């Protein structure tokens, strides 16, 4: 079982406490943008996903813990977590991810 670091609890907790919540950094359009959005744009927002083979930014929920959401970078080939960070932080750049990886 994986141990996942919750940035709110600042603790590594077992995987079963967490729920996966999909790709991160998908920005929900505001009411005004929604009015102007084409079907293709809606489709992209609702259905299209990067489905990365490699380092993936994704959202997790500490459902059986502090009940807070956070984001994480995880390698989808090894399943290893590279870093977890709080929601509101910008999507990490490739350079940032490499830095986190070499810091490990």
């Amino acid at each position, binding site marked *: 079982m994986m141990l996942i670091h919750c940035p709110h609890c600042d603790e590594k907790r077992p995987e079963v406490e967490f729920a996966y919540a999909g790709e991160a950094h998908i920005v929900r359009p505001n009411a005004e943008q929604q009015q102007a959005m084409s*079907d293709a744009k809606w*489709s992209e927002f609702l*259905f299209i996903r990067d489905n990365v083979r490699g380092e993936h930014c994704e959202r997790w929920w500490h459902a059986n813990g502090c009940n807070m959401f956070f984001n994480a970078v995880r390698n989808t080939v090894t399943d290893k977590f590279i870093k977890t960070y709080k929601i509101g932080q910008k999507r990490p750049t490739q350079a940032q991810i490499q830095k986190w990886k070499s810091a490990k």
Partner: protein
Amino acid sequence: MKFSARSLFANALSGHKNWPEQFPNKEPKKEYDAIIVGAGGHGLGAAYYLASKYGMTNIAVVEKGWLGGGNTGRNTTIIRSNYLFDESAGIYDHAVDLWDGLSQELNYNVMFSKRGVLMLAHNVHDVQSFTRHVHANRLNGVDNVWLTPEECQKKVPILDISPNRRYPVMGGAFQQRAGVARHDSVAWGYARAASKLGVDIIQNCKVIGIRRGADGAVEGVETEKGFIGAKKIGVSAAGNTSVVMEMAGLRFPLESYPLQALVSEPVKPIVPCVIMSNAVHAYISQSDKGELVIGAGTDQYTSYSQRGALHLVEHNIMAICEIFPVFKRMRMLRNWGGIVDVTPDRSPILGKTPVKGLYVNCGWGTGGFKATPGAGHLLAYTIAKDEPHPINAPFNLDRFVGGRLIDEAAAAAVAH
């Protein structure tokens, strides 16, 4: 060479040492009329039908690993077509029709056994939903009958139908034409039959790029063994479809998840058909070797690792033991994972793409094995005619823009 009682006898006399190679491992030519990416059952099936039905024999199947080493060899081999919607009934029943007689057609025993699939109902909601399925299926010409608890027990003697169980059996939907097949044989059989018709099967040859011309149309694939030209490319890469499609600049409505399965030590015949229970979230059948074959839903997070979390396996076994306490002391031999590409509506995408000359067969999610001959045939048709067959026309990519989804509840991960 044709497999027959005579060839079996003749080879027995020489100690089975002189059987010829079934499909040669080819090196790529410079150019083909069409290339299929992915030598699983679907891709090999497409190659076979392109050659046998549509006269395109100058084609290649390129595979990054070994033939049938992906989801074709990692599933629980269940075949059924008891899906709710008309479009699904059409596509899955087309596959079941082709499963019938496939062994004869390929001259290769795929061991298709129509032992039936029993979906157990444990509560009022299950009863209502399954009877609706039974009616919808019969209107679509798909066989499916409702069984009382007593009839279920008659089929499956180890089933406890006491009303005092935590999950009492309130009946079940039974499809007799459903069953299981030998999954490796399907890949080998298609590969052998396709090779015979002149198809090149190129293993250990990963596709690393899709080359497109000035007009945007495909020109061929870049591979580990160099560039291979083709005006038509069919992608049948299951869990890795997003990765291949990105090479053509396309983003797809797919997410790849691990789906696990496991088998027990072999025992004498005890499970006569495939038994599924959505309420406890598991399904079970018994292979001809005697192993119990057990599966459930996907893991929770996307992954390409081809393995899953152990606590999901534990949950799966707990669910099986809840329905069949008799298996509590069975020992499990192996478990494994495959990477399944899941669409938002749990229905496949099979048809053309916005890139000229690029065709796709993906999104079968947790239930692709049952569709193998159907998907292969429909992909072949779509490539040969440059337009979808009426059966796979509704399963286009545009439905995620237009909104005409095929939201197939029967395709929920557990029900495979």
